[in-house]
C-alpha cells in the first residue's frame, strides 16, 4: 500500500497557500521542496489519484462574481437516504454534501451564479425529493481559513 512520505507532506502543507501565475509555476514551487519540476507534477498526480487531495487548482469565490453560496439541511429518513443523496448530488449547484449525525442528517452547500439560483435549486430539490429543505445562508462570515497539516 502506498504511503505518504515527508516530501508529500511538505507539498500538501506548502501548496495549500498559493501557486503563482507564471509560465512554469511548478518549477518555482519545486525549488522549495528540493525536487524537480517533473517530480512535483508526478507527486501531485499521485496525491490526486490516492484521493489525499480532492482537487488542485483555483478556488473561486462565486460571491465576488455576483453569485451566491448557501448551506442547506434536510431531515431524510434512513430508508430513503440513498435515493435522496442521488437526487441532491445530481444538481451541479450542489458543491459539497455531507452526511451528519443529527436529526438534520444531510447538509449541502449550494453555489449558484445568481442569488435567485439558490431559491430555484432549493425548490427543485424539494419537488424532486419530497422533503423540505432548510436554507441557512450565511448572514455574517467571522472566519474562513481551513488549513490541514499533513
Amino acid at each position, binding site marked *: 500500500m502506498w504511503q505518504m512520505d515527508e516530501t508529500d507532506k511538505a*507539498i*500538501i502543507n506548502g*501548496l495549500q497557500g*498559493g*501557486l503563482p*501565475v*507564471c*509560465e*512554469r509555476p511548478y*518549477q518555482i514551487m519545486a525549488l522549495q521542496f528540493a525536487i524537480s519540476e517533473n517530480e512535483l*507534477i508526478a507527486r*501531485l*498526480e499521485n496525491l*490526486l489519484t*490516492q484521493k*489525499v*487531495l*480532492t*482537487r*488542485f*487548482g*483555483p*478556488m*473561486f*469565490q*462565486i*460571491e*465576488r*462574481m*455576483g453569485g451566491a453560496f448557501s*448551506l442547506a*439541511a434536510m431531515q431524510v429518513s434512513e430508508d430513503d437516504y440513498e435515493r435522496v443523496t442521488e437526487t441532491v*448530488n445530481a444538481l451541479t449547484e450542489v*458543491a*459539497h*454534501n*455531507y*452526511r*451528519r*449525525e*443529527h436529526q*438534520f442528517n444531510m*447538509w*449541502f452547500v449550494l*453555489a449558484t*451564479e445568481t442569488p435567485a439560483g439558490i431559491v430555484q435549486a432549493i425548490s427543485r430539490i424539494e419537488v424532486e425529493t419530497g422533503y423540505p429543505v*432548510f436554507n*441557512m*445562508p*450565511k*448572514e*455574517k*462570515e*467571522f*472566519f*474562513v*481559513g*481551513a488549513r*490541514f497539516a*499533513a
Partner: protein
Amino acid sequence: MSIKLDVIDRAIIQATQSGLPLTQRPYHTVAEKIDIPPEVVMQRMQAMLDNGVIRRIGAVPNHYSLGWNANGMTVWDVVDEHIDTLGQQVGALEFVSHCYRRPRIIPNWPYNLFAMVHGRNRDEVEVKTVQIAELLAPHCRAHATLYSTKILKKTGLRI
C-alpha cells in the same frame, strides 16, 4: 461589490474549475484548450486573484486522508445582541476553520452561530468545543455538535 466577468474570464473558469492542468506550463495548456493567448490567460488569472474572484490557487486536501477523522460542525444558540462580538472571538480561535452567523429556523433549528472544529478524533473535538462553550457561556442557550460521517459529494463550484 460584484466583479463583472466577460466571456474570456468565464472560459478560463470553466477550463480550470475541476483543476489546473498538471503540465510544465499549466496556464499555456489552459490557453490552448480555450484558444486564447497564454499571456491573456495569465493576466486574467492574476487579475482574478487580485480582485478576489480567485481566493487562491492550490491544493484542497481530503482531511480524512490526512488523519483528521473527526469533523464537528458545532452550532450555538447565542443571544442576538452579543452574537457579532462573540462570533468574532470564536472565529479567532486557532482551531476553528470556518465561523458564520446563520438564521435560526424556529422551531426546528434554534442555532445561529456555526463553527467548524476538526480533530484527529472526537475527543480532540470535544476538548476544543468546551473552550468555545466557556467563551460563550453567559450568552449561549443551547448547543450541539454534528459530526460528519460521510462525504456524499465534494466537487466544488461548477458554472
